[in-house]
Each structure stands twice: as structure tokens, then as C-alpha cells.
């Protein structure tokens, strides 16, 4: 098998590259060649892979090699982060109308994707959240599709509206909507027949349903095992019908599931749910980070990276807290904090969790400024970083020149540093009182438990 030892090969390639500070073009090219293969093997669409590789390369070249990671691992880390980002960063949730209005969800997708089962599962989820749900059986084509929905509805205790197969799906949807309104249902889920995206009549039918009832969410349901064609399917459904969100099914299989990336890249819509089995409770929130790891399929490298990150974070944080205890917050500490905060989505994010931290103006440092601040600090000498008191006008001028900024930027940065210093001292004070014990532990800075 050509790709069995991908991880191994990957590690071999980079074995002798340790110790570099920055990723050079060659490292990145070599690494991305393997990444490209991995993505293609995972069924990510060829064109999506091409774009992804190009963009990620641009980001990775010149990037700093993370401490205690090899250049190759650093590339993989960047790749994973980009994949997560492409996949939507965080789990998405459908926004429902208030209880007294009807939120209408319409299922759409190819034959056999899993719409009917998923429609029922969705109904079950919302029922358990206390909503009144009505399922509408609008697949009048596939033999026994209505029976299937009815049986599932019964099992879940969710009502199913059906009018047999002798009437048009548009009419059924309309009547179901009327019933939902008059009987005060809060969610209407319309199950539709599977159809090919190139079947113009059938695509028109979905448009007609949308025109007849006020559909809030058209959810494209896609089989996780889909190959290259996922892109065409998503494109066509988007263009012809309009898609508001995605559901990926059959993720309990052993497929890498690259289709998830393809459809997400093409539609730009959130993936709301993941189908994880045949039981009616097997529908879960979709987690972009898990999917990213699954697609890239380098489980062992990724866990290695995570372990390394953990130790780096912990060691660095130990140093910072140590300094704090001695009340010497340095530019090195500042840099560490910056890195950690960037991971956590900015300072305002952290501040919002801290009681009584009003002294620090969060808006002064936004995400885009991080990079500039970093480059200024990196232009300082070792001594300057370790000893903030050394700062002088001539040093500032040199730092500005070295980092391609001007004196005003450096002054602002110094001010921000001083604010941070104060802020950290305050926190240190609180820490002594035991309020913020977990603050510098991995909980906060790994961002796992809290975000």
C-alpha cells in the first residue's frame, strides 16, 4: 500500500532538519507534497486540495518552527490549524425561532445519503429539547419512504405528517406547514426524496417547496464516503436550490471523510451535524477539529504535536508565573503571553473571564496587531527582552528599524507591555489569594475545557 507508512515517511524526511528556526521553502514543499497525497487519499476534491496546498504553503514558508517540534511537525500543525479553520473553527448550532413560531428545515441531497433517518434523528433532538416537532413526508417516489419516516417518528414519539404518494411534494409541504402553524408546532422538518443534482425537474421541485413554504434552513445531507463528486453536488445544490447548512452522515464508518472539507469549502456553509450510526440517537454536533485530524489521518504525528505543545505551554507558563512571583514581567513573558492569547482568540476573550480586570484596554491589542508586536519584540536584544528597564529612545529607534515599524508603534507597544505588566501584577496578587489558581495551568491556556 502506497500510503501505509505516510507518518513514517513524513518523520523520516524531517529527521535531519531539527534545530531550524524558520521553515524554509524547501521544507514546506517537501512536507506539503505528502500532505497533498494524504488529502487526495482522503477524497478531498482535487481542486480543493490544490487551493488548500497553495494557500497553506504561502502561510508556512518563513513561519517559525515551534519549540520542540521538528520542521515537519510544524508544517503538519499549520496544516491542521488551517484545516480546522477551513472547516469552521468551532461547532455550529442552528438558530431557531422563538417557540411560538415555526422554524422550517428542509432536507436535501442525493439518493441514499441518509436524509430520512437524519430527519427523524433531528426531530428527536429537538423534541428532547422541549420543542414540538412535526415531520413532513415529502418523498413520494422511493417505495416505502413514507413508511420509513412514520416508523421512525413513532419510535421517537414525533408526529409525522403524510398524504400518501398520490399528491405532489409541494402540496404536502404546504399542508404540513399549515398544520404546523395552526397546531402550534415549533419545528417543521421536511423530508424530501433523494435526487440527482443534474435532474432539473427534481431540483425545480425543491425550489417550488421553498417558494411555497418559508424554509429557514435547507440542509444538504452528504454521505461521508463521497468521493471527488462531492464538490459538484454541493455546487449544484447551492446554485440551483440554495443551501444554508450541511450534515455529514455515516461518519461511524472508516472513511477519512474528505468530502466534508470539499463541501464546506465549496458552500462556505457550516456543517451542523454528524451522523454517527443507525440508532435514532446517533446524530451529533460536528466538531471541525476532530474532522481535521481524521481527514489528514496522521493521528500519531498529531498527538505527538499535542504532547509537545502541552509541555511547551506548561514550561513557558511556569517561567512566566515564576517571574511574576518575583514581579519581573519581561518582554519574553509578554511574547509568551501573546502566543498563548493568539491561540485563545485574543485578549478580550481572556479578560471576559477574569473578574475585576478592567485596568487593561483590550481593544488596544487586536488579533492583527499581535504579529506586529511579536516582530518588535523579536527585534530586541536578549538583554532588552529580559530586562524591560533597559528601554531607551535609541533602543526604540533600532527596534523600529529592525521590525519595519516606526517609533510610534514601538511606543504603543511599550505602553501595552507596561499595562500588561501591571495587569499581571494584579493577577499575581489575586493568585496569592488563591482565586486564580488555574489561570496559568493548562486548562486556560490549552483552551480545551473552557472553549
Amino acid at each position, binding site marked *: 500500500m502506497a500510503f501505509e507508512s505516510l507518518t513514517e515517511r513524513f518523520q523520516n524526511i524531517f529527521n535531519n532538519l531539527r534545530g531550524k528556526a524558520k521553515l524554509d521553502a524547501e521544507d514546506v514543499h517537501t512536507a506539503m507534497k505528502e500532505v497533498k497525497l494524504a488529502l487526495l487519499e482522503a*477524497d478531498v476534491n482535487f481542486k480543493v486540495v490544490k487551493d488548500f496546498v497553495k494557500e497553506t504553503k504561502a502561510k508556512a514558508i518563513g513561519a517559525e518552527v515551534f519549540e520542540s517540534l521538528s520542521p515537519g511537525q510544524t508544517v503538519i500543525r499549520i496544516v491542521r490549524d488551517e484545516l480546522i479553520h477551513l472547516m469552521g473553527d468551532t461547532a455550529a448550532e442552528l438558530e431557531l425561532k422563538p417557540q411560538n413560531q415555526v422554524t422550517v428545515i428542509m432536507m436535501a441531497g442525493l439518493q441514499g445519503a441518509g436524509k430520512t433517518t437524519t430527519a427523524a434523528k433531528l426531530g428527536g433532538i429537538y423534541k428532547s429539547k422541549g420543542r414540538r416537532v412535526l415531520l413532513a413526508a415529502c418523498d413520494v417516489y422511493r417505495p416505502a419512504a413514507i413508511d420509513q419516516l412514520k416508523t421512525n417518528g413513532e419510535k421517537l414519539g414525533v408526529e409525522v405528517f403524510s398524504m400518501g404518494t398520490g399528491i405532489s411534494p409541494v402540496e404536502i409541504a404546504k399542508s404540513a406547514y399549515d398544520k404546523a402553524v395552526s397546531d402550534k408546532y415549533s419545528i417543521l422538518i421536511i423530508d424530501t426524496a433523494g435526487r440527482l443534482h443534474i435532474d432539473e425537474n427534481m431540483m425545480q421541485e425543491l425550489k417550488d417547496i421553498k417558494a411555497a413554504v418559508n424554509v429557514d434552513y435547507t440542509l444538504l445531507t452528504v454521505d461521508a464516503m463521497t468521493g471527488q463528486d462531492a464538490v459538484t453536488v454541493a455546487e449544484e445544490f447551492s446554485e440551483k436550490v440554495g443551501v444554508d447548512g450541511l450534515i455529514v452522515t455515516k461518519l461511524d464508518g472508516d472513511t477519512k471523510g474528505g468530502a466534508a472539507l470539499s463541501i464546506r469549502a465549496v458552500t462556505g456553509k457550516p456543517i451542523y451535524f454528524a451522523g454517527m450510526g443507525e440508532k435514532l440517537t446517533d446524530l451529533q454536533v460536528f466538531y471541525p477539529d476532530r474532522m481535521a485530524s481524521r481527514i489528514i489521518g496522521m493521528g500519531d504525528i498529531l498527538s505527538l504535536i499535542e504532547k509537545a505543545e502541552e509541555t511547551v505551554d506548561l514550561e513557558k507558563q511556569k517561567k512566566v508565573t515564576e517571574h511574576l512571583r518575583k514581579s519581573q514581567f519581561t518582554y519574553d513573558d509578554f511574547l509568551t503571553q501573546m502566543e498563548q492569547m493568539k491561540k485563545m482568540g485574543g485578549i478580550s476573550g481572556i479578560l471576559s473571564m477574569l473578574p475585576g480586570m478592567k485596568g487593561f484596554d483590550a481593544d488596544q491589542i487586536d488579533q492583527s496587531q499581535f504579529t506586529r508586536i511579536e516582530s518588535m519584540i523579536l527585534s530586541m536584544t536578549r538583554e532588552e527582552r529580559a530586562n524591560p528597564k533597559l528601554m531607551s529612545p535609541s533602543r526604540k529607534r533600532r527596534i523600529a528599524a529592525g521590525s519595519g515599524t516606526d517609533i510610534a508603534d514601538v511606543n504603543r507597544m511599550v505602553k501595552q507591555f507596561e499595562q500588561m505588566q501591571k495587569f499581571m501584577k494584579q493577577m499575581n496578587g489575586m493568585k496569592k489569594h488563591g482565586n486564580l489558581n488555574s489561570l496559568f495551568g493548562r486548562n486556560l491556556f490549552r483552551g480545551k475545557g473552557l472553549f
Partner: protein
Amino acid sequence: MGFFDKLKEGLTKTRTNITNGLDTLFGDYSQVDDDFFENLEEILIMADVGMKATDAIISKMKERVREEHIKEPDKVKEALIETISEQIKPCDDAYDFADQKAVVLVVGVNGVGKTTSIGKLAMGLKEHGKRVVLAAADTFRAGAIEQLKVWADRSGSDFVAQEEGSDPAAVVYEAIDIYNSRNADILICDTAGRLHNKKNLMEELSKINRILERKLPDVRKEVFLVLDATTGQNAISQVREFVSVCRPTGIILTKMDGSAKGGIVIAISSEFDIPVKYIGVGEHPEDLQKFDPKEFMRAIFYADKD
């Protein structure tokens, strides 16, 4: 409508896509060089042939180009089609079961088109003058029994079912008795869709398979694995696992009326000795066709010149 016409109709989109690709490929390239092969590689990957099989095809083609001193892109196209269709050709006795006493077990992952393909097969066999028994051994999925019943009625086949949730093996036992007592020609067993990585469900299938072998030793046995043409590289894993529990004798490649290329069967043919026997080109009773590799390749690779 003949096989090729139907296939052409079904594959309109496929054909335009892929042949446009190839036509541009061969039109743009006046010589057979690296760029040419790179582009060819892209087309194969986009058809779900997969990296490994694509690599193999490309190096084989390069070798031929070198050995046979092929200079014209057109000739490479010919050679390519020849090579691949030779590789995916079904054996000569692939369809003999239809004229014997036979039992057909139909397996595959969820939603690929097992029940529909059974319905189409039953229609065809009835037309062929055979007495057919359909066994509803998918006792799991809601509505599955009713779905097969509709096809039994449509085709005029005998129908064996128990209630939802009952043991599929029991349904198969009963079906064998009925098949024997009514002296029917062909018994077709529908099974529940199952993901190939679920040990218990695969074990259940293996059990059904053993029952058929044991109870019908003198009857020709076919096991059809249904694959969805839209499926990507995971199909290889599907084949591997189904091979290990019930040794499929043929593949039914469904949904070839869509825009998916179905190229995965090319990859499968290079790893497994299981021929594609039928393709599904729609949801109607007549939408099942014998698989003809030459026409299949031609429909994929050639522009419509008529």
C-alpha cells in the same frame, strides 16, 4: 433502448465532463510529455481512480510510450482505454446464474442501492421467464420490508418476510424452504445496509452466507456487492471487508446516471478479482444494465462524435 444508448443517456454529464477533460488534454498537447501526463493524472484522480491506481496506470502508460515509441497523444488515449478495459473485463460466465437454479445474496453499506437493484434484477429475471423469490432479510431498517414488497409486487416475484426486528437468518431459512417447495429458479436475498467496519453486523452476514452454502449446496451461488459510484476511496475498504465475510462474486455499480465517474472500480480491479457485472443508471425498473468495460471506458473517455 440498447445498453450503450442507455448508458450514454445516463452518462451524458459524465461524458461531457470527463471527455472534455480528455479532449482538451489530447487537443492541447501536441506531444506526449510530462505536462501531458500530469494532466492525465488529474483527470484520473478527479474520476475517483485514486492515487495508487492512477500512479500505476501512468507508469504503465509511460512504459508503453517508451517501448512502442508512441508520439501522438491520440495513440496514448487508445492504449489507455485498451489497457484499462482489459483490466476491468468481467469473466465469460458472469451472467450464467440467470439460466440456472441460483441464489443471489445482495450486500453493501447503507443506502448504496441494494433493494432497488434487487427490484430491477427481479424485473429482468421475470422477463427472462424465471420464477423468482425475494427474501426480505433486511429486518432492521424502518420501511425496508415494505420497500422490497413493492418491488416483489411490481415484478410478480414471490415474497418472503417476517416482521421488523426479527432474525434475518430466520427469514433466510424460511425463504430457502419456500424456494425449494415452490421449485423456483432464483432466490434473491436483500440484506440490511451495514458499514463494513461493524464487526457484529459483518458476522451476521457471514452467518447468512454460511446458511445459504449449507442449505443450498447444489444451487449456483452469487454474492453481489453493491457499490455507489459516488463513493470515493472508501469503496476499497468496503470491498476488502465484504470479501473477508462473504466473498462477493460480482459488483453492482449504482448511480452511474449522476455526475460521478465511478473510477473507483478501476482501482478495485487492480486489487481484487471481483468483476463489475451491472451498473445502475436510474431509479426505474429498466435502469439496470450489464457492465461492458469497452463501452464503459469509451463512454467515459471519448467525446460524443456522432
